[in-house]
């Protein structure tokens, strides 16, 4: 996946600028705006990705939409990206920026899957526990998934905290198979 390497570099550049000039919140908000706009509007995305339109045209479009709503640094950044012919990666650059921002601010996004809806008290407890383990501020998003059967599975980035009944049953099943192996 070549695009992630490239996007990361662009995202790093605007991120470092934001940190240096102490404008992280403002620029983060701009990036979120651009990200949201591209993700929710198919036509905007097709225009940006399409190789048919000339860079000046794309720049004009982006300028018209965003220039009044974003800071000057972000505007320059968009100009840079278009000039380097990497506008197709704008969405991915914004995603990478969010990752960098979260890492810098010590925020982690946790996705919690449980079979039944959790009460606020329970949710807060999970949040606090995860915060303590990871030493970061946790943003929680909950999903109901009957497959879990009971308990919950919390996923933060690439680490899973599995306190579900399904997992225990899986472990049980593996124990039965230990004596005889038909390696799949």
């Amino acid at each position: 996946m070549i695009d992630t390497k490239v996007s990361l570099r662009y995202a790093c550049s605007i991120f470092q600028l934001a940190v240096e000039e102490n404008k992280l919140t403002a620029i983060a908000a701009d990036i979120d705006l651009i990200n949201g706009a591209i993700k929710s509007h198919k036509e905007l995305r097709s225009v940006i990705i399409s190789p048919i339109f000339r860079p000046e045209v794309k720049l004009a479009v982006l300028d018209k939409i965003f220039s009044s709503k974003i800071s000057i640094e972000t505007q320059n950044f968009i100009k840079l990206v278009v000039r380097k012919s990497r506008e197709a990666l704008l969405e991915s650059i914004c995603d990478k920026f969010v990752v960098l921002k979260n890492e810098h601010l010590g925020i982690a996004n946790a996705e919690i899957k449980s079979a039944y809806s959790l009460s606020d008290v329970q949710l807060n407890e999970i949040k606090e526990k995860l915060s303590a383990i990871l030493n970061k501020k946790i943003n929680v998003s909950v999903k109901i998934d009957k497959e879990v059967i009971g308990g919950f599975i919390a996923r933060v980035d690439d680490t899973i905290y599995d306190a579900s009944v399904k997992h225990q049953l899986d472990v049980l099943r593996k124990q039965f198979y230990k004596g005889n192996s038909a390696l799949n």
Partner: protein
Amino acid sequence: MAEVRPDEISAILRQQISGFENEVDIYDVGTVLQVGDGIARVYGLKNVMASELVEFPNDVFGMVLNLEEDSIGCVLFGESKLVKEGDTVKRTKRVTSMPVGEAMLGRVITPLGLPIDGKGDIKTSAYLPVERKALGIIQRQPVKEPLQTGIAAVDSMIPIGRGQRELIIGDRQTGKTAVAIDAIISQKFTHSEASKALGINPVYCIYVAIGQKSSTVAQVVAKLEENGAMEYTTVIAASASEPAPLQYIAPYSGATLGEFFRDSGKHALVIYDDLSKHAASYRELSLLLRRPPGREAYPGDVFYLHSRLLERASKLSEELGGGSLTALPIIETQQGDVSAYIPTNVISITDGQIYLESNLFNSGVRPAINIGISVSRVGGNAQIKAMKKVAGSLKLDLAQFRALESFSKFSSDLDKATQMTLAKGARLVELLKQGQYAPVPVEKQVVSIFCGVNSYLDDIELRDVKRFEKEFLEFIEVKYNEIYVSIRETKDLKDEIVAKLRSAVEEFLKSFKKSA
């Protein structure tokens, strides 16, 4: 599947349920991007180690081989059709390892240590990583104890020592596996009380079958069981239908199990049958992982593949227990071409080779060993004194015979000396022929070669030589058993014994009848 007893189920369930609230598993995960041909590309798993074991859904395991900037290349130890794109991959946090222990003896297992002989679970205490660095120089000592293979031709002229690597190389159907199996069966003596009294340590055997037909492996296991050799042998089977990654790690698993015995001061023998198929499966893996192909499409590190495997066979120094791991790798050549890529690689790594030839095999010389080009670089250090005394002239006589062999067609036109050399040589070749699964103990080999080398057989018909040997050995056992006992216990051929032997041969010759 083994019967699960009713109380086992409820006991386990009770245990699981009571421990239920307290168990929260924390594991790292990744997502499968692409899967096919036994390879999976995974995104995520940022903290995974190289060669770590990872778990896919449906009980499929994989090993991480390629660590790239934003994805990981894993090989699957199972069917790739059980893994889909988007599946979650879990770290097991352990480098690919296998269970080791004495409980492995007598079992048939997969390269990951799981039993496939239907005899139930194997309870072992330790897990050792499959890939381990070989020992350094200080930890080793030179090879000095013999490993008796029970094959007269090998033990006399191409002796193998404990801790040596001896390559068995030849075309297909020349008896390579037979030599290896005979070596295993001949270790039965080392597990007896008699050998303990003589100060000979037991040798545990490991037979690694790589890419072979399952029917062949089954036959081997049956033969070993029949000869009582299974009790000290482990068979690691990665047969032809197993995925290439399993065939790739099979020899390393064998080496790991062997190292367990070696490091606890015991002796082990590991047989890799065969490394040509091992190289082929590694080539398959590397090409699918998009590693650049080299000569014959093998990847660039195919030498390292075998050198790190064979370097693990060694003799430990006394401070570390004096254990040893002997390796007998097997390579199959195509039409006798020993200068192909893989054979030359392995020949340069091992401490000698036993070369088996098709034309020798077809003309009835079995084991079909070509003594001229077979060599053991350890040589005399791995032989008992008695054998050294008789084998010295054996090699010379056979070499002279070979040089003159092409003249044997004109036998009547040759001078007496040449005729005698030819006669003696032919009888020696006949003497060294041996049946399968019939290893000969070293004292009997010494006596038999003594007769041949000292020209006692020259007046016997060629077709009677084997019968003479058999009957003479029985005669000695019945009437002069002290000869065998002396050779066994002193490991030497003392002058009085030689004198006794000479008189015994002369006595026997008088009564030996020619066959009709």
